[in-house]
């Protein structure tokens, strides 16, 4: 469908004598637009500045990852998973690794479990900081954008030292990871946490209580609990609507069951709640990291002895909680060293689906706020 053609179902009546005459017009928001967070096109039917209907169009960066995976070996899917949700690359890695481990029937040593949890939480902090930045930035405060990214760079420095890459980590493997963590890892995380404590105070002072932010986000883009469940929302978006679901607690993987943490919940389901849930999650992640630092085994193996490369034929499913929500991997393994099918359930895709419901009757400015708080990553939607 071309860019100028109306999406099916959009009817704009131009006949002034008709009773159904409307002043509505059609605007393409994206694929090149500063606040669609990537190549996403939102076809909007508008009445003045009010959104009547919205149809998201995606696929501008569709790379056919799941199909490509079928012609690759199992390990070669790891770099692919990095490139889905690039903000939570390290978490996607773990999601794939967990599914493979079920098929390969390997476990991981305790030290590796701690490495996994710590890197997960660091990744979660990094992703939520990007959310903080983009939320502020999309509301018009460019300073927040830089604030969020400043601390995120520190996380990425740590991750780079551990994994060798800033963005596409490609780190976890079935049965362990590519490397052990360096000796400097724990002190660096500790220093980062100390820095974050004071910085988060500043950042919350900067944005959370701000009257303009509150005015623009409270009561905007309300997602009811029923809708959140019906549209398969997950992660902070669902939790802000009162859906008490977190894979880390409801279906614990790794050693999350041994750690003490709360799942932040909010019940209004508006933009401000989604923001608050994410900020609270940063604090919870820092709490988990502090526990891990205390318990981190100084000695011990960091990966399993065997290094399998094939899965036993069968179907394997794993789910983890990334910063964006539920990230599930479904692997159908056949004989041979290639997967028969890998399917990924990404968290951002359902969130885009619910966009039309959330922004009915609101303005373009509100749409920007809603998009920011849904925090979608387009490469993960298109995959």
């Amino acid at each position, binding site marked *: 469908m071309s860019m100028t053609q109306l999406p099916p179902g959009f009817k704009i009546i131009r006949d002034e004598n008709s009773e159904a005459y409307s002043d509505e017009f059609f605007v393409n928001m994206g694929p090149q637009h500063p606040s669609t967070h990537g190549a996403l096109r939102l076809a909007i039917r508008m009445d003045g500045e009010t959104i009547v209907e919205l149809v998201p169009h995606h696929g501008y960066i569709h790379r056919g990852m799941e199909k490509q995976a079928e012609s*690759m*070996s199992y*390990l*070669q899917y*790891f*770099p*692919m998973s*990095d490139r889905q949700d690039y903000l939570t690359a390290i978490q996607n890695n773990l999601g794939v690794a967990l599914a493979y481990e079920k098929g390969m029937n390997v476990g991981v040593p305790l030290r590796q479990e701690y490495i996994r949890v710590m890197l997960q939480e660091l990744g979660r902090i990094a992703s939520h900081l990007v959310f903080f930045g983009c939320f502020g930035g999309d509301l018009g405060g460019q*300073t927040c954008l830089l604030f969020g990214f*400043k601390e995120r*760079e520190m996380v990425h420095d740590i991750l*780079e*030292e*551990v*994994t*060798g*890459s800033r963005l*596409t980590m*490609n780190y976890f493997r079935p049965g362990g990871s*590519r*490397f052990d963590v*360096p000796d400097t890892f724990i002190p660096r995380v500790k220093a980062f946490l100390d820095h974050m404590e004071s910085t988060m105070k*500043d*950042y919350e*002072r*900067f*944005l959370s*209580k*701000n*009257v*303009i932010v*509150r005015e623009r986000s409270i*009561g*905007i883009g309300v997602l009811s609990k029923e809708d959140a469940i019906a549209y398969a929302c997950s992660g902070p978006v669902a939790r802000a609507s009162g859906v008490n679901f977190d894979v880390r607690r409801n279906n614990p993987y790794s050693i999350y069951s041994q750690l003490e943490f709360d799942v932040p919940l909010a019940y209004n389901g508006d933009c401000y709640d989604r923001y608050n849930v994410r900020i609270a999650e940063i604090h919870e992640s820092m709490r988990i990291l502090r526990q891990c630092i205390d318990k981190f085994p100084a000695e011990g193996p960091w990966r399993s002895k065997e290094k399998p490369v094939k899965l036993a034929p069968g179907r394997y499913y794993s789910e983890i909680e990334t910063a964006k929500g539920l990230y599930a991997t479904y692997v159908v393994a056949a004989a041979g060293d290639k997967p028969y099918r890998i399917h990924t359930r990404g968290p951002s895709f359902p969130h885009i689906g619910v966009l039309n419901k959330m922004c009915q009757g*609101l303005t373009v400015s*509100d749409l920007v706020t809603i998009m920011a708080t849904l925090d979608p990553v387009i490469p993960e939607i298109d995959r």
Partner: protein
Amino acid sequence: MEQKNISTKQYIKEYLKKCVTGPWSLLCGLSVSLRYFFNPKRIVTEQYPENRKTLKMHERFRGRLSMVEDADGNNRCTACGMCERSCPNGSINVQATKNIAGKKVLGRYVYHFASCTQCGLCVEACPFGAIEMAPEFEVATTDIKSLEMILNKKEGQG
């Protein structure tokens, strides 16, 4: 936006409350930005080309693929082709040859840098530790031909 059914008294109360808390929250935000403005120690920018000498990448940094060679330029590659098979993009092309003794050794290790994503799977797959990811990040070039390189200087020893 939203129509709430509240009494006039409540409305005025909320309005007055907003008049006090609103400016206060804005002043809080302003205090943060003022503090950041007057504290140059918080600046995190690195002046990149100037700090080239002190800028060191981490040991594990994945830059360009390179061959581990000793002082004489000998490599450890046996032309087994594990790296070639592990590469998701087909960036590696190991061309084997036969030495005088008739043994299969490495002839040319062709590396297509243009299609490489620096995932490092080849390094992981190599059973002999013959290749590594060099911590080299200034890899931009104006010549597309220079992206296709032969990594080994000498033929493999087998």
